[in-house]
């Protein structure tokens, strides 16, 4: 027995089995939820590399598994990311049985988690790009429900993500060549272009960002939110592994310029476009662009020299509030969409009077993504703005503009949702399950916003362990 078998093969196999049991909706959701939580628990309970003695039996779970000459290994510093990945999956599975959500999310979600775990474990790490591509293929299938026409956004998503793979693999190989011959400036420039194109395509950086709002407009918002979160998490970890492998890149001024400029562009673009949206799904998409921009700016704080590497904790700490906000937003959007048939503003007018809890969840979810005070996203956004204002004020202004744009967009959305006659009473027509999940998410979002000292130190520690800056 070994760790990669437990966190890669097992969830994948369970996902395949659950795929054939899809007609038992509640059972599948529950099985997915329990599997994910057990895999989280297993990280803490199972002693890797040490014998487990049960009576006369003794089993040792090794950290590594060699397949076709390459190693899959779960090193101790990656434990926190496995926990985060499977907790995310569990969180999303929790909402599958209570809304108009494609039930395939459970088996396919387990498949995606399995592939992303493989991306985290594989050595050499560069092969992670291939596992991420496989996860993208599963995501694309998940985004198109069997009863609908193929949304163009899915094709664009598939195309851009697939085109990123060759650039990343080639860039990785050429970077190894630069290590042997660091003085070749022309080669460094050419590799820089490859790296920029590869990560630009994978991370949906301008001008390869168009699929993000398109997906949010066309596909199921809950599944879209899941894809946004899972892929950005995996790709961010891949970028950090990439920088760790070629750690001389940390000192590269070109990397700093690329991260800062693309970050500024993304937050400004997402915020300005978000303020003028007339579709709730697209507003979520543009909020995600702002999130990607903020991630790039957080990465820029971690680059510029190895001594800045601990600043990556800002990036890590943003994953939890982002996941929470996206999950809550996705669920609330699904509820509104199932009533209105669409998320266009002219169709959702006045729905808040019957679904005020969903409306509140949309509002708070967007505020948290915008980094508004008293929400989960605020503490980490404040730190990001403070750090940026000291090092690169333009980026701090752009980030604030981006957040303001999302804030304006969310106010406009809520304005449309609460329109209606004063005679109409305020009600909550969501089901009991929907109410409890939305209420719990709202409560957690606000509690984290009010008492950040309760959770953020834990997230920082997880980040520092992953970065191998703490044992």
């Amino acid at each position, binding site marked *: 027995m070994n760790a990669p078998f437990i966190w890669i093969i097992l969830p994948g196999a369970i996902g395949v089995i659950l795929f054939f049991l899809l007609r038992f909706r509640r059972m599948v959701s529950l099985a997915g939820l329990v599997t994910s939580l057990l895999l989280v628990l297993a990280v803490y309970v199972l002693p890797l590399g040490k014998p487990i003695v049960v009576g006369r039996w003794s089993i040792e779970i090794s950290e590594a598994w060699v*397949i*076709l*000459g*390459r190693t899959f290994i779960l090193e101790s510093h990656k434990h926190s990311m496995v926990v985060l990945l499977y907790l995310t999956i569990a969180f999303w599975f929790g909402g599958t049985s209570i809304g108009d959500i494609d039930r395939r999310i459970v088996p396919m979600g387990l498949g995606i988690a399995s592939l992303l775990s493989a991306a985290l474990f594989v050595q050499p790490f560069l*092969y992670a790009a*291939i*596992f991420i*591509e*496989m996860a993208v*293929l599963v995501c*694309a*299938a998940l985004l*198109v429900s*069997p*009863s*609908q*026409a*193929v*949304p*163009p956004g*899915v*094709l664009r998503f*598939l*195309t851009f993500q*697939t*085109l990123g*793979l*060759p650039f990343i*693999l*080639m860039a990785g*190989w*050429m970077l190894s*060549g630069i290590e042997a011959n660091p003085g070749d400036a022309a*080669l460094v420039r*050419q590799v820089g272009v490859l790296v920029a194109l590869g990560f630009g395509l994978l991370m949906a950086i301008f001008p390869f960002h168009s699929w993000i709002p398109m997906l949010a407009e*066309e596909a199921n918002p809950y599944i879209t939110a899941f894809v946004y979160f899972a892929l950005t998490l995996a790709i961010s970890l891949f970028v950090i592994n990439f920088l760790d492998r070629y750690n001389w890149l940390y000192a590269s001024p070109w990397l700093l310029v690329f991260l800062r400029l693309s970050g500024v562009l993304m937050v400004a673009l997402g915020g300005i476009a978000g303020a003028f949206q007339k579709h709730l799904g697209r507003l979520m998409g543009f909020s995600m662009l702002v999130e990607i921009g903020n991630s790039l700016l957080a990465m820029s704080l971690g680059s510029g020299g190895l001594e800045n590497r601990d600043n990556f904790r800002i990036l890590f700490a943003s994953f939890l509030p982002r996941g929470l906000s996206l999950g809550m937003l996705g669920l609330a959007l699904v509820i509104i969409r199932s009533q209105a048939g669409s998320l266009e503003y002219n169709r959702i007018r006045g729905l808040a009077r019957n679904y005020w809890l969903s409306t509140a969840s949309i509002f708070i979810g967007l505020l948290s993504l915008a980094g508004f005070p008293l929400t989960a996203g605020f503490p980490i956004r404040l730190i990001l703005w403070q750090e940026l204002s000291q090092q690169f004020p333009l980026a701090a202004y752009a980030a604030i503009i981006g957040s303001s744009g999302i804030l304006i967009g969310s106010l406009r959305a809520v304005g449309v949702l609460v329109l209606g006659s004063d005679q109409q009473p305020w009600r909550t027509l969501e089901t009991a399950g929907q109410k409890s999940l939305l209420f719990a998410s709202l409560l957690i979002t606000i509690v984290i916003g009010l008492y950040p000292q309760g959770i953020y130190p834990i997230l920082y520690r997880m980040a520092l362990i992953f970065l191998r800056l703490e044992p």
Partner: protein
Amino acid sequence: MTVIIQAIPILAVVLVFFSSLGLLIITNWRWSIVVLTFQYVGLFVLVSQSWPVTLALVKLVAGWMAGAIIGLALSNRDIEYQISARGVFQSGLKKKERFFSSYRVFRLFIAGMVSLIILALAPYINKFLPEIKLEQSVGALFLMGFGILQLSLTTDLLLVILGLLTTLSGFEIIYADIESSSLVTALLATVTLGIAQLGAYLLSIGHGDVSQ
């Protein structure tokens, strides 16, 4: 005999050129699948210049299986699938088109321009990859160039899938020169099959239409 063996990679480049060009201009899905199988023969020959034939065969088998998966999905559809003159999918299109329709002439013209760029660029690939043969770099660039051209000219589902397979094929020739790991070979074959499987799924649901 030696002359024939030496000519095989050149023939493979010709095969790769005409098959990838064919995928750009053919509007009948059956012919597209046939041409795709020839494209993978060319890929196999070019990859076998760097790898043992047994390992290179993986590419051929994966490519042919990909073609079979897409072909099966399309043959099971209850309506005829034909790509319209605008390069956008239409079901039940029965009208016979002229061979030199504006759709094809435009694509041939663009493909000609891309070919010129590729022929100019190919010798420079050796600067980065000293081990790669000129035939391999020309073949890979044709596949990648025409694949990306295909992706940029269409929103048709089948053509997008074929474009992705073509682009990845080109990359695989170059990557074969620098990486011969069995795991990577298996993973890239899985990606090829995965793209085909996804394409087959998307083509088989919702009548395969891409919403406009």
